[in-house]
């Protein structure tokens, strides 16, 4: 009886079984991995609408978005001017103020220090903006890092004005 196993080993039926089996394993693995991705209820909260009608000039509010604090500040003309005056060459992370605040009156940014994630304190620090007490990072009136260990400016999330009273973040 033929015992030439070496040639038989590459029989089509085995190859087809292995190939189809691999497909099956992949199809089974995907749900097991995808279930850890954000679920529908979390994704529904991926964007938040904020009513800003009560915010006066020079006032800040903090809202929760995707589990993190977001600073919304209605800046005074003084703060806007100071932000625009800054020479980009002085900045660790150069960004123009108009790129960070399309509507210069409104500054929207994540209240998460880019160093190690603490929440910076408003109206503090040497640059008229925010100061992070954890390791001494100072941010200016545009939320840009000016002094201290933080590497980048406070992050500006995707947002838009739904109407003059409402900002949708995310």
């Amino acid at each position, binding site marked *: 009886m033929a015992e030439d196993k070496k040639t038989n080993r590459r029989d089509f039926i085995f190859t087809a079984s292995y190939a189809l089996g691999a497909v099956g394993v992949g199809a089974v693995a995907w*749900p*097991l991995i*995808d*279930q850890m*991705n954000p*679920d*529908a*209820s*979390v994704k529904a909260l991926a964007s938040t609408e904020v009513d800003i009608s009560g915010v006066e000039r020079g006032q800040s509010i903090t809202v929760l978005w995707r589990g993190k604090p977001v600073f919304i500040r209605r800046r005074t003309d003084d703060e806007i001017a100071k932000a625009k005056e800054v020479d980009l060459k002085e900045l660790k992370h150069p960004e123009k103020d108009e790129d960070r605040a399309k509507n210069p009156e409104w500054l929207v940014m994540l209240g998460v220090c880019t160093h190690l994630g603490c929440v910076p304190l408003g109206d503090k620090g040497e640059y008229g903006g925010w100061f992070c007490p954890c390791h001494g990072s100072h941010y200016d009136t545009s939320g840009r890092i000016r002094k201290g260990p933080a590497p980048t400016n406070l992050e500006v999330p995707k947002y838009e004005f739904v109407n003059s009273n409402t900002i949708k973040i995310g």
Partner: protein
Amino acid sequence: MSDHEFTPKSKFGKWFNDRLPLLTLRNHLTEYPTPKNLNYWWTFGAILTFCLIAQIITGVILAMHYVANSGLAFESVEHIMRDVNYGWLIRYFHANGSSMFFLAVYIHIFRSLYYGSHKSPRELIWVIGMIIYFLMMMTAFMGYVLPWGQMSFWAATVITNLFSAVPFIGDSITNWLWGGFAVGSPTLTRFYALHYLFPFLILGLVILHIWALHIPGNNNPIGIDLKHSSKDKVPFHPYIVIKDLYALLIFLIIFAFFVFYSPNLLGHPDNYIEANPMVTPNHIVPEWYLLPFYAILRSIPDKLFGVIAMFGSIFVLVILPWLDTSKVRSAIFRPLYKQFYWFLVADVLILGYVGAMPAEGLYLLVARIATAYYFLHFLVILPVLGAKEKTLDVPLSLTEPILGGSPNESVIKKREEI
């Protein structure tokens, strides 16, 4: 066995294997000599291993989303079903997987009973198996409590209340189990912790179960002893691996029909009602795989003796190798035992059926008769058969009947059945 003669091919392999002989283990499992006359009832060991791993994987995933608090549990399960990506699939797989796990274990156990796999020298494999079975039942019972539906709550109440039957310390035991004065959130959280733990104990016992099996080697349909070096054996890989895979795929087709087209058929609608300590469901029933024991429990009018009977019914299974005294293994050569075997199967199915019915009238009478017969089978019929049964002649090798040297016509007929 040539386990000690194996040397790995690569240098790294040799270095690793000298320190932790995993490659020797792999070689052993690959070459493990398996009887070549095994029929499909022998594939359920592999199917069970698959079920255990699948339940562990889907269970750990569910645990990422489930909340074990009486106020949030039901809602967290609905969250899994509605919001978690493929949550409905993983949940239905796990719930129906439990039923499939028990279906497989019953087939596996009944295969042992028929072919005498519980007999010497395999008694310990059987006993370890019975411990695994008992842990499976505890795991399933606790798992069923977790969704915190009406059946979850009331099944937990009924079964934990059984312990109050213990004289003197019964109430202390139940309060200790509950963590309170009734089933509640503390009960739920501890059941969750233990439900997560037990499958890993089962996994360890399964390894011991297989290890103990590999010492004498597998039993086979005609129940004769085969040496490890016998020509009647084939290497486990690839011959048995592929047979197990084929059987597993058939099993998965049946599993898929349940998961995708009737996911709630084997469950109880009342478990979609949130647990309510003020309202008892009309008929408290456990899941189908626990019904025979439920029937035995309810057939005894006295609470304590009902509990003793229920645990006793598991105990007689544990000591089976010492009750079934016949020297012949396989029922193929035991015509009388074979009859009584099928009576036992019918008896267990009847017990399961009446277990789902109200414990009154004709159902109760049938349950009592079936319970009595169950104990009669193990405690009386088996030992008597062992002593008195005239068994058929057992062939001396697998090939003997084929080569025409068979002394017994009935052996040739039996061979057709293999």
